[in-house]
C-alpha cells in the first residue's frame, strides 16, 4: 500500500560488532594453561574407560609400556579386550592363555623393533597394570603371573597419586 510505504522509516545499516576482547582473554589464559600442562607432563597414561584406579601416596612417574587393564572380569591389552575371566573361576592354573598369547605377540613385536633400532641387548619389556580398585587379589595374581610368564618382569601398578 503506497500510504504505509511512505510512512516506513528508512533504517540506516548500523554494524554491531561482537565484543570479543574478554573472550579472547579467557581463551588466552586457557591456552597457556593447557600448553603448560602439555609440556610439563612426561609419559602420559590414560586410565582405561570404566577403570577406577586406587589412590596411593606413590610419586613415581609412569614410563612408556604395554598397558594391561583389569575391569571386573574383563582384561584389556592396550585398550583391546583380550580375555574374560569369570569372577568365581576355580583357582587351579594361574595362567590366562588368551592374555599370554597376546602378550607374547606384543613382546616379540617389541623385540623386533628393538633389533631394528640396534638396541636389542638393552631391551627390557615393561608393563603397566591398571587394575580397578575393587578387583579381588586372585584376579590380580593371575594377571601378574601371566605377565611374568610372558617375560614382562618389570611391572608397574598404575595408581592415582595424591594431587
Amino acid at each position, binding site marked *: 500500500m503506497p500510504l504505509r510505504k511512505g510512512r516506513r522509516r528508512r533504517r*540506516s545499516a*548500523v*554494524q554491531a*560488532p561482537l*565484543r*570479543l*576482547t574478554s*573472550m*579472547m582473554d579467557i*581463551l*588466552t589464559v*586457557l*591456552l597457556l594453561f*593447557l600448553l603448560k*600442562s*602439555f609440556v610439563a*607432563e612426561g609419559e*602420559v*597414561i*590414560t*586410565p582405561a574407560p570404566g577403570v577406577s*584406579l*586406587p589412590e*596411593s*601416596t*606413590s*610419586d*613415581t*612417574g*609412569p*614410563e612408556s609400556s604395554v598397558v594391561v587393564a583389569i575391569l571386573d572380569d574383563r582384561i584389556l591389552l592396550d585398550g583391546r579386550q583380550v580375555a574374560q575371566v569369570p569372577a568365581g573361576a576355580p*583357582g587351579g592354573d*594361574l595362567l590366562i592363555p588368551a592374555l599370554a598369547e597376546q602378550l607374547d605377540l606384543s613382546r616379540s613385536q617389541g623385540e623386533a623393533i628393538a633389533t631394528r633400532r640396534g638396541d636389542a641387548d638393552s631391551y627390557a619389556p615393561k608393563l*603397566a597394570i591398571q*587394575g*580397578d*580398585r*575393587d*578387583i*579381588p*587379589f*586372585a584376579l*590380580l*595374581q593371575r594377571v*601378574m*603371573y601371566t*605377565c*611374568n610368564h610372558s617375560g*614382562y*618382569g*618389570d*611391572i*608397574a*601398578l*598404575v*595408581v*592415582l*597419586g*595424591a*594431587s
Partner: protein
Amino acid sequence: MPARERRRRGFREVVADDVDLLPLMNLFVALIPMLLVSAVFLNITVIEMKAPGDEDAQARADQAREELALSVTISAERYVVEGNGVQTVSVQRADPAAAAQLAAALAAIAGEHPENHDVMIVSQADTRYEDIVGVMDISREAGLPGASLLAADRALN
C-alpha cells in the same frame, strides 16, 4: 550549521575501531579442543614391582626363612604383622586408627632392623586391590619399600 543539521537528520558515520579478532578466535577454537583432549587432569603415578624368575623366587624364599621374613597378612577382620624374632601384632581393620597402628608397628620393626627393607603382603583371594595398595603405601612410608605380594603359598613378587 552543518553539524546541527547532521544531528537533526540522524545521520551518523560508524567507524570500526576494534581489531578484527575473528581469525585469532578461529585459531584458538581449534587449538583448545586439541589440547583439552591431550591434557592430563589426573595425577597418575605407578608402584614399581619386579617379578622374579623361578630361581630368584626360590633363592628369596630360602633367604627369607633365615632372615626376618616380615609379613603383613590382610584378612577380612585384621592386619597381622609377623616375622622371625618379631612380636606378632594384630590390628583390627574396623578400628578407625587401624592404618596408624599398622604404620606404627611397621615403623618400629623397621627401626629395630634397619638392614631390612622388605615386607611380604599376604592377601586372601578376595582381598580388594585397593586394600593391598593401601598396605603397600603404609609399608613404604614406614621405611619398607620392598613389598612382595603373596597368596597362600605362592610368591608373586
